[in-house]
């Protein structure tokens, strides 16, 4: 029995065949039902093949090797930068900086944006720890004040005190586009405009948005945006910082080392302009190349189509989860207002036990605090279970999740 829903990717079965891992079976011969894509996405064959081909045929260090392989490797690495620039609609390729991951990109900003006593940084209560801790550290170092937007009972940002929070002393407003725990989609254009109005810079954490939504940095009006490669069907070890070119070139260097300089003497150095200014040392070359292939893959399907698929699956999942007795969803209940990560509680069963029983049925979800402890504390819970879909998720997999949750209830002998 296969369910069809409006908005599902029409070639879903073909897309699934692009992801070899989806064909594997687990213990007891059970098929894999992978619902942990907000944690990390699976990788299509084209990404795997591109990385293998690079290592087999084009491997060399970049930007310094005076030989054919060096030229090919440099072209592949810089080509990936072009693909990222196109993916986020960046006005210039120089605005795309490769980092290790989104966390490193956020740390780069928190380390280099100048702050001092009297300044403040505004974040939100629904951030991933990676968009909280770097700013806490920056404020501790500089004497700046850390402020945050609260979250309403229905899982949206509480903007009622926005005028008081973001004021003339605000230097940075940093916020997630899509919450990794609540799924909430935030008004990033409004928040960016609010930052700009007081002369602050805006920083968007697009780690959960870039996999699922069309990203257009120009349209958001933001100053900086970060995301990670491994959630956008790319490899681990590669992330992206996009920033307005004038702002990037005004920031001091982050890491010092090779490739980030203009010239070095024993007394002092001068620094390259962005992007190389922020890419000290040999970068993750094959990872960047893999990310380029991944973004090509997503662009080929079309991010509007990926988004429509996610919304269809999310709506179907919210309906299915609502049939499970004792289950409550954290965050917005309207699929149109949220992303594909759905955190929930099952009364009487701890999330780790939910995940363990689901795993015995082949259903992979995440359990815990999802690196969002303050967001959990806001709702008075210590941890939750989270399912997260992606472009390869089928309605049948959601049915398998719901069936496995029913089994979990019976296993723990709940009414």
């Amino acid at each position, binding site marked *: 029995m296969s369910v069809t829903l409006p908005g599902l990717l029409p070639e879903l079965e073909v897309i699934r065949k692009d992801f070899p891992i989806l064909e594997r079976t687990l213990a007891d011969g059970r098929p894999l039902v992978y619902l942990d894509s907000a944690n990390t996405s699976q990788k299509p064959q084209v990404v795997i093949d591109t990385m293998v081909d690079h290592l087999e045929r084009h491997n060399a260090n970049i930007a310094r090797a005076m030989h054919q392989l060096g030229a090919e490797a440099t072209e592949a690495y810089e080509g990936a930068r072009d693909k990222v620039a196109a993916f986020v609609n960046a006005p210039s390729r120089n605005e795309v900086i490769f980092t290790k991951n989104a966390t490193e990109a956020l740390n780069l900003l928190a380390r280099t944006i100048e702050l001092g006593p009297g300044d403040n940084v505004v974040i939100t209560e629904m951030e991933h720890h990676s968009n909280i801790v770097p700013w806490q550290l920056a404020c501790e170092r500089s004497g700046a004040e850390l402020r945050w937007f609260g979250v309403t009972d229905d899982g949206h940002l509480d903007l009622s005190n926005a005028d008081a929070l973001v004021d003339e002393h605000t230097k940075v407003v940093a916020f997630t586009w899509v919450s990794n725990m609540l799924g909430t989609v935030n008004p990033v254009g409004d928040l960016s405009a609010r930052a700009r109005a007081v002369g602050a810079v805006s920083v968007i954490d697009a780690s959960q948005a870039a996999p699922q939504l069309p990203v257009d940095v120009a349209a958001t009006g933001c100053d900086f945006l970060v995301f990670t490669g491994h959630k956008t069907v790319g490899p681990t070890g590669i992330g992206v910082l996009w920033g307005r070119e004038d702002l990037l070139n005004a920031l001091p260097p982050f890491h010092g080392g090779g490739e980030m300089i203009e010239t070095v003497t024993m007394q002092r150095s001068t620094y390259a302009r962005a992007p190389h200014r922020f890419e000290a040392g040999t970068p993750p070359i094959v990872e960047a190349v893999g990310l380029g292939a991944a973004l090509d893959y997503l662009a080929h399907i079309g991010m509007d189509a990926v988004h429509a698929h996610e919304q269809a699956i999310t709506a179907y999942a919210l309906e299915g989860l609502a049939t499970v007795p004792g289950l409550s969803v954290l965050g917005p209940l309207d699929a149109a207002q949220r992303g594909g990560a759905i955190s929930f509680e099952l009364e009487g069963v*701890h999330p*780790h*036990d939910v995940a363990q029983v689901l795993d015995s049925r082949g259903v992979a979800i995440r*359990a815990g605090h999802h690196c969002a*402890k303050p967001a959990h504390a806001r709702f008075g819970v*210590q*941890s939750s279970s989270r399912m997260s879909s992606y472009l390869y998720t089928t309605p049948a997999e959601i049915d398998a999740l719901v069936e496995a949750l029913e089994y979990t209830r019976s296993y723990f002998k709940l009414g």
Partner: protein
Amino acid sequence: MDLDSLYQEIILDHYKNPHHKGLREPFEAEVHHVNPTCGDEVTLRVHLSEGVVQDVSYDALGCSISQAAASVMTDLVIGKPVDEAMRIHGEFLALMQGKGTVEPDEEVLEDGIAFAGVAKFPARVKCALLSWMAWKDATTRSLEASHG
């Protein structure tokens, strides 16, 4: 994976009806331990006198394995001389770190043998050990307090 080897009836019984739960007086040391990967936490107090574990009281949040482990641990150590309780702790630790190869001694571990299956689930070993580590920490502090 054999779910029933993990979730023994004994574990589920202790989870539903934990022994010695709640924070009590008197105590010489109180500790708060968390499992940072999953967020499970326990606040635990130890009361020692005349070299004997007089009471272990706790407040804990977490999964069935961590909650049941706390309950079983209090059964095993309350009323025991501290050095004997430490030996039981060592035995339980060896069982948990044995990757399923250690045969538990029911004479020593009593209901604790139900956790033998947990050792085969590496992600859950820390759940079973959380309250034991808290107990060891609190006991060490209690001893230091009484000697200091």
